[in-house]
Every structure is written in structure tokens, then in C-alpha cells.
């Protein structure tokens, strides 16, 4: 055949495939879902610094109290991280046997106000553990022979308003009989809060060091508190890494599969394939047309959505992701889409029915996003840890999804996850693997279509 005729029919089939795809219902659904995941995720994970870091669901605030006869009473108040009482939590009281382990001497359930109390006799030290479901919090109580003040207090700080600083100071105050006390809270000499009926108060201190004063019936205690920054990873690049290497990695292939899983098999099933093959078009032209038409139908909306996601990250965090990283994400996404479109064209050519084509699509996604890792793990398990590590590193190259993921991460700033994770593979090796996978899948798709299109 004349080399100029090799690609005959390509633009015609590509245009038809593209127009047919973007007019389909499945295209609209997938474009919507992808936008929701990528743009929504970009917005949601931009707030990563605060909201998701709250520690356990329950706090336990413990106090020493003294009965009229001078015996000790262990007092525990159980709340959520925001100071709302938790009713019905189990509280276990233990006396120490070793510095770290204890022997239970009492168990109680928190009352309607969130309090649990236990008679501690003459014990001077008590471990307290509160449990609600699988949420658990522990504390301890030290009994003094002569209490220094007419109240006891416990403080706990967290970043409850997601401002990136651990400066939200919760204070729980009871009097020496163990009842909630009407405390006033002053910050740098100014009254800022009053304890509620259960003895809880909270103040937002702001950055820097503050002097906090707790005052009850003329007695007071003042202590300094320095707010520190939330020690978790965050920022635009981390959000982008989560979107690019996580959500995008999983959802962009789904879009590609949904669009292209029946590109050939549908023509076969509905009987239009023979008519198409009888046209003056080369099989190479038809297959490449199918590829480009499906690819464009996925790549166009995904690129728009990816760019929108990057813009949203910039708007939500007030800081744009690193340029090279963002660019690598947008560019390599096209490669990931191309991989899965080509893979589906191969499988679609082999599928004799629509059902098989759907099954192949689901399997392709499962294999590269889930089963591959499990299989690599199973294969590497019998080896010593060093060999296991090396097998797992090398196996990255055998999965186009992982090649994409590691190439995207290779373009990210080095300390992204505090240096955790990553790969020992060089960007060069990953780049060669990326090109290999594209060429290999393209050649296989062409060969399969030439051989099997109409058998």
C-alpha cells in the first residue's frame, strides 16, 4: 500500500468517534463526576491543615476531689473535642501497679452531665481511661495532701477552628468537692470566657504567647501558653499530590474506560463494523481514528477539570501549586488517559459481546489500580525485606498507572510528605517506561485490530 494511504480514513473516523462520544449520556455523567472529584477534591483537601486533625473523638478531663472525711474521690468528665459532654461513656479507674500499668478498682458510666466519679480511698495516684465505642482517651490524677487552691483545672489545646495554630485552649474547672465551678477566664488581663454549667470554657488565644488566668472566688492561677503551628503536612502542593496521585489516578482511567470500552465491540455487536471496514480506509486509519476520537473526548474535559482544580487549590489555599508540578500533572494525565483508551481498544477488539466488553473494562481498572499491587506484594512476600523492597520498586515500571503516579511525584517538591514514600527509580527510567508503555499499547492495539477486527 502507498505509505500516504496508511492513515486513510483517520480524520473521518476520529471526528465521528469524538462527536458521537461527546453527545452521549455517559460522557455527560463522567464529565460531571470527574469535575466533582477533581475540582471538589481540590477544594476539600485545601483545608487539610485543620479540619481533619482533631485527635480522638473523646477527651477525658480528670480531677482530684476530697470527701468530707478527707478520703479521695477521682472525678472524670468526658467530652468531645469541642467541649460537649459525652453521656454513657465507660470510665475505668485503676491504681498503679507499675509506672505504666494499673489494676482496676472501679468502673462507672458518665451521667447526664458527662461526669463519672469513683471513691479512691487513700490512693495518691489514679489512672483514668474513658471509652465510647472505639474512641478512647486516658489521663491520670495526682492527689495532694493539702490542695494549694480551692479549685483544680485541666487544660487541653487543639486547632479546633482550622486556622493552622494549636491555640484553641479548652479549660475544665471543678472545686475541691468535684463539682463544676463558676470560673472566669482572662487572657492577658482581659476577661474572655466563663465556664459553663459543667465547668468547661474555651478561648481562642491566637498566635504567640498569652498569659491565661483562671479565677474562682477570689483565688486565681495564671500560666503562659504559646500557640504552635499545626505540625501536619499541608499546602497547595500536598493537595495537588492527593488529587494527581490519588483521585485523578483512580478517576481519569474510569472516564477513559467508560468512553472507549465498546469503541470496537459496539460496531461489531450492532453490525456496523463490516460496512466500516468495506470503506476505502485503512485499518490503521480506522483504529487510530477511534483512538484519537475517544482520547480527545476524554482529554478535553479532563484537562479543563484539572486546570480548574489547580485554580481552585490556588484560590482555597491562597497559594498556587509549584508550576512544574502542576504542569506535569496536566501533561501526564493525558498520557494516563491515552494508556487506558488504548488498552480498552485492544480489549474492545477482542470482546465478542457488550457484556464481555464491560467486564474487560472493569477488570482493566481493577488490575492496574488494585490487583497489581496485591500480586506484587504476594510475589515479594517470601523474600527478605531488602529483596522485597527492591521487587516492589522495580514493579512500578510494569504498571502504567504507577509509572504515571511516580512521574507526577517526580515533578513535585522533594519534601512533600516530609520525605516519606516515593521511589528509588530515576525520572529517566520512569520516562523510558512511560514511552515504552505508550508505544507498546499502540502497537498492540494496531496489531489486534488488523488481526481480529472482523473475525
Amino acid at each position, binding site marked *: 500500500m502507498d505509505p500516504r*494511504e496508511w492513515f*486513510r480514513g483517520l480524520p473521518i473516523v476520529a471526528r465521528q468517534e469524538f462527536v458521537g462520544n461527546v453527545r452521549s449520556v455517559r460522557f455527560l455523567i463522567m464529565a460531571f463526576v470527574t469535575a466533582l472529584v477533581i475540582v471538589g477534591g481540590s477544594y476539600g483537601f485545601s483545608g487539610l491543615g485543620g479540619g481533619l486533625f482533631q485527635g480522638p473523638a473523646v477527651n477525658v478531663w480528670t480531677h482530684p476531689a476530697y470527701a468530707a472525711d478527707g478520703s479521695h474521690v477521682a472525678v472524670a468528665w468526658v467530652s468531645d473535642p469541642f467541649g460537649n459532654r459525652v453521656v454513657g461513656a465507660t470510665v475505668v479507674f485503676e491504681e498503679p501497679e507499675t509506672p505504666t500499668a494499673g489494676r482496676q478498682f472501679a468502673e462507672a458510666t458518665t451521667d447526664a452531665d458527662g461526669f463519672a466519679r469513683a471513691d479512691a480511698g487513700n490512693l495518691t495516684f489514679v489512672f483514668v481511661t474513658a471509652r465510647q465505642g472505639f474512641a478512647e482517651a486516658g489521663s491520670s490524677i495526682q492527689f495532694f495532701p493539702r490542695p494549694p487552691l480551692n479549685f483544680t483545672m485541666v487544660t487541653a489545646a487543639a486547632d479546633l477552628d482550622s486556622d493552622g495554630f494549636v491555640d484553641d485552649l479548652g479549660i475544665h474547672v471543678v472545686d475541691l468537692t468535684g463539682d463544676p465551678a463558676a470560673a472566669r477566664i482572662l487572657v492577658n488581663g482581659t476577661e474572655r470566657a466563663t465556664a459553663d454549667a459543667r465547668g468547661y470554657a474555651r478561648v481562642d488565644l491566637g498566635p504567640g504567647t498569652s498569659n491565661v488566668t483562671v479565677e474562682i472566688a477570689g483565688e486565681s492561677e495564671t500560666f503562659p501558653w504559646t500557640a504552635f503551628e499545626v505540625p501536619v503536612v499541608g499546602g497547595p502542593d500536598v493537595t495537588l499530590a492527593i488529587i494527581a496521585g490519588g483521585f485523578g489516578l483512580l478517576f481519569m482511567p474510569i472516564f477513559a474506560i467508560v468512553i472507549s470500552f465498546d469503541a470496537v465491540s459496539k460496531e461489531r455487536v*450492532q*453490525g456496523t463494523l*463490516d*460496512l466500516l*471496514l*468495506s*470503506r476505502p480506509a485503512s485499518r490503521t486509519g480506522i483504529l487510530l481514528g477511534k483512538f484519537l476520537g475517544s482520547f480527545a473526548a476524554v482529554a478535553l474535559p479532563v484537562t479543563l477539570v484539572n486546570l480548574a482544580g489547580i485554580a481552585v487549590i490556588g484560590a482555597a489555599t491562597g497559594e498556587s501549586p509549584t508550576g512544574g508540578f502542576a504542569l506535569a500533572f496536566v501533561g501526564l494525565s493525558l498520557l494516563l488517559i491515552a494508556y487506558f483508551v488504548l488498552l480498552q481498544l485492544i480489549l474492545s477488539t477482542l470482546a465478542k459481546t457488550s457484556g464481555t466488553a464491560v467486564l474487560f473494562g472493569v477488570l482493566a481498572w481493577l488490575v492496574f489500580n488494585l490487583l497489581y499491587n496485591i500480586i506484587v506484594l504476594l510475589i515479594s512476600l517470601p523474600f527478605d525485606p531488602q529483596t522485597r523492597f527492591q521487587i516492589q520498586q522495580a514493579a512500578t515500571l510494569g504498571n502504567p498507572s504507577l509509572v504515571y503516579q511516580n512521574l507526577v511525584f517526580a515533578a513535585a517538591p522533594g519534601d512533600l510528605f516530609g520525605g516519606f514514600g516515593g521511589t528509588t527509580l530515576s525520572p529517566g527510567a520512569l520516562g523510558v517506561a512511560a514511552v515504552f508503555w505508550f508505544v507498546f499499547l499502540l502497537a498492540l492495539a494496531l496489531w489486534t485490530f488488523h488481526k481480529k477486527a472482523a*473475525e
Partner: protein
Amino acid sequence: MSNGGNPSGPHTRRFLSSPRSPAAVIDVEGLTKVYGGSRGVKALDGVTFSVPERGVFGFLGPNGAGKTTTIRILATAIEPTEGTVRIGGHDLWEDPLAVKENLGLMPDEVAFYPTLTGMQHLVYYGSFYGMSRAEARKKGSELLAKLGLADAVEKKVKAYSHGMKKRLALAQCLLHDPGVLIMDEPANGLDPAGMRYFRDLIRWLNGEGKTIFLSSHLLSEVEQLCERVGIIDHGRIVAMDTIANLTAHLATDAPSVLRVTARGVTEAVVDAVRALPGVASVETTALGLDVTASPGADIGPEVARTLVGGGAALREMRGEQRSLEDLFLSLTKGGGD
């Protein structure tokens, strides 16, 4: 699949003359197709035929004989295991694009893209032949009007009836004005009026100078349209000649049967009939007798005289002329619809 009944006897050999004209537009030689590897099913076995320019060639055979496989090879949908095909002087695998430029295919199963309109199909298909949108629309409108499909031009194909799809299939087949038409069961699934319409159309197309390869399992269709007929069974051509020659062979070669309705036919009468010159065999039936004559023998008067003379009450005597249909059925082992 039975191979035991292959027509290798002297009776069928005679029909296998296939003079291959150098001016043949379709020239098929030794076409063999095996599905599923070396131990697979042999769908075609050495199929050879040719169709001259402006000829109408009838490809006749029961369902599953290999007609559609042959057509899919001619349309380059599948490749043969062996054999060559030249259409319009071009080899089908060395120069497929040149062949396909000049080829119109009407498949048996008329299938289209359900969400496209009839006109969108024609515009899409036309673009493969370098037709602009406007050109395809103009040509398509003319064709669809001629085919009585003008009202449905802008309707989606999923709303088409079978007959409408057949017409659209013909429209896409003729759109680029090909010189060679490959038609697989064009009358399949049509009512008598529709079949007649297609017959007239095919005659007209042939008059316009098209070379037509027509596959069918309906003898009547082929008999009325084609000059030459090839009969295929179990992947082999079992007879090939002009309709006139095949019929002539029948007149001289094929035995004829007298169906006799009579009462009181005794053993003695049957023996007397069997003894008549020119009688090949006699069988008693519920109605009376079936008497088979030797080829060319005119036994009617003698049989009648013998029966009446033997005391039988003769009611009716009907000579059964062997037709192309009998030939077709006998060649294809009685297979058919």
C-alpha cells in the same frame, strides 16, 4: 459437517465448467477460509468464480453454505486462508483501497448507528470517498427520494422499519456510484411488494452498467435476475453455469416423473408398467403410482394404455417437470431455508 456427500459424481461434474473471461470484473480463485486455526471449521473450500463486466452473478446456496463468508471476504472484512480475489483488476489485499473505492456493499444484516439519522449516515459514509458534506447531502437526497425514503431522511435510524433500513442500506451502497455491487440477500425479510421493488431496482442498476454479485438462498430471486448462477454448499461450488444451460441440462438429463392417481392397481398391472420400454422405476403411492421415466423417454400414452387395459380406474396422470429447484435441492442435499 458432512463431507461424505460432496458432489463428485458424473452428474454434477458436468455443471462445473467455469470459463474465466479475461474481462472479468470480479475474479475469485481458490478461495478457502478456515475459522479457528488449523483444526477449525472449513467455511470455504476452493471457491472459484468470475463475473464479467455488467454481469449479474447469482450466488445461490442454503443458509450456512458459505455465502456470507464469501461476501465478507469480498468486502475485506475478513481475510481468506487461501486464494486470490481481483476486483476491477486490483488485487484485494495488495491494493484494497482501489478496490473499495469502486465497491458498494449491501450486507445481509442491515445495521446502522441507531442514534444517527439516515442522512447523517450518508454524510459519514460519503466522506470516506472524498465527498463533501454538501455533495453527500445532495447525492443522498436524490437517492433517498428515488428509494422512497425522502420522508425519513432526518429521522434517527432506530425509528426505521426493516424495509426502510433495507432502502438505506441500498442508498449507502450506491452513494459513491460504484461499478461493482456486492449484495447479500437483498430481498431477505421483505414482503412480496418489497421483493418485487428490489428486483426491478437491481435490473435497473444492471442496465445502468453495474456489475452485480447477488447472493441469495431464494432460487426464484436468482432465477429472475441472474444470467449466471453458482451454487454453493458446504463451502464448495457444486454447480456453475448460465440459467439457460442449467435448465437445458435438466430437460435432457433429468428424469421426469409421472404421478398417477388410480384405483384398482393390481400387482400384475404394476409389473406390466415396470416392463414398459422407457420406464426406469415404479413406486406405489397412496394415490396410485409414481412412474419415473428414463431421460428423454415419452412414456405417458403407454402407461395410460397399460393401466386401463389392466382394469385400473385411472383418474389423473400428471407429468412432473424437474425444475431448477429440484436441481438446487438435490445438489444441496435438500438443505434450504
